[in-house]
């Protein structure tokens, strides 16, 4: 139960990691002037 829980957290965050990589490739900050 606990093992599944921790693994599922890793799994979801891995998805976010992949998503962020794709986003950063698609919309690199250096080409925009509206960043914070």
């Amino acid at each position, binding site marked *: 139960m*606990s093992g599944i*829980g*921790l693994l*599922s*957290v890793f799994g979801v965050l891995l998805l*976010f*990691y992949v998503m*962020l990589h794709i*986003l*950063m490739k698609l919309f690199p900050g250096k080409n925009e002037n509206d960043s914070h």
Partner: protein
Amino acid sequence: MQLVVDYWRVAVMFAIGGTLIYLAVKKEYEPTLLLPIGFGAILTNIPGSSAIGEHGFLTILYRAGIENELFPILIFIAVGAMIDFGPLLRRPFMLFFGAAAQFGIFATLMTGLYLGRLHGIASFIPAFTLKQAASIGIIGAADGPTSIYVSGLFAPELLGPITVAAYSYMSLVPLVQPPVIRMLTTPEERRIHMEYQEFRVSKTVRVLFPILVTVIAGIIAPISVGLIGSLMLGNLLRESGVVDRLSKSAQNELANIVTLFLGIAIGSTMVADRFLQPSTLFIILMGLVAFIFDTAGGVIFAKVLNLFLKRKVNPMIGAAGISAFPMSARVIHKMGIEEDPTNYLLMHAVGANVAGQVGSIIAGAMILALIH
């Protein structure tokens, strides 16, 4: 005789309420929450108090915002509006530390269930149910609203001690984390330098991040939509740049009003009969276990990663993967400086710390999805 016992219990609850107020005022330990909780506990335990009961204002507040989870949800909107995900967006790799440092939640959950087995041997050891053990474990999220949200759903009878433990240990991070980190790392490891490159994150990424996180997490665990969606709504208000008034209101007025209501409403759950139980002591102890295992989980994960990485990470960064922001990042930075005055770990630690804020809420969501 019964009257004497009752007044003794009331006196103890006054002392507990007074201690929380003392910690808030003198030590500044999470004062925005501990002060109203402490006073709420005193209001609740005054014999014949009109603050509780069918028409008491604390009962009305509890029903209006805790029983139905509204207050934690509103707090999430406020917290989301306050979070700058920038340090994490620049270093998405930190997300893994945000996951590893949730280890304490699940280790404590197991500890809680194991304690239940010992109940037959020693009756003073509480037999926690799975939902109660999960609610106690979530103290390890180091994230007050997540603890309140999960325990409000799973174990409302334990809401008072769980909330007090969660906020107390969050403020005690500078005392809890360093000894665990020192025990698990060598001075050489603590001196590892990490390269840092500052670059701008596009507004498109900042706006898309909260939307996509909500959609992905919501599809995986629909029960988490309230939890994650409200946090990300707050963040979207902030990052969109077009609703500055709403963002500032969420960060200030909404956060302040709801924190006040949340605090005194939680204080109202600290009724002597329910609070003065052995289970409260166990919850306080297990909260400490959760924070210790969180820290250990993050550090050990970083050390394991170093076996495979060419550019080593400072294993202390793993400990910053808890949600207590910015306390944990500051602790790690300070420890790095102590070991080597030229070692600036702050930006990496902040990245891991922000990842911990995402990790803790995802852990809460996974617990809800797996156990509900």
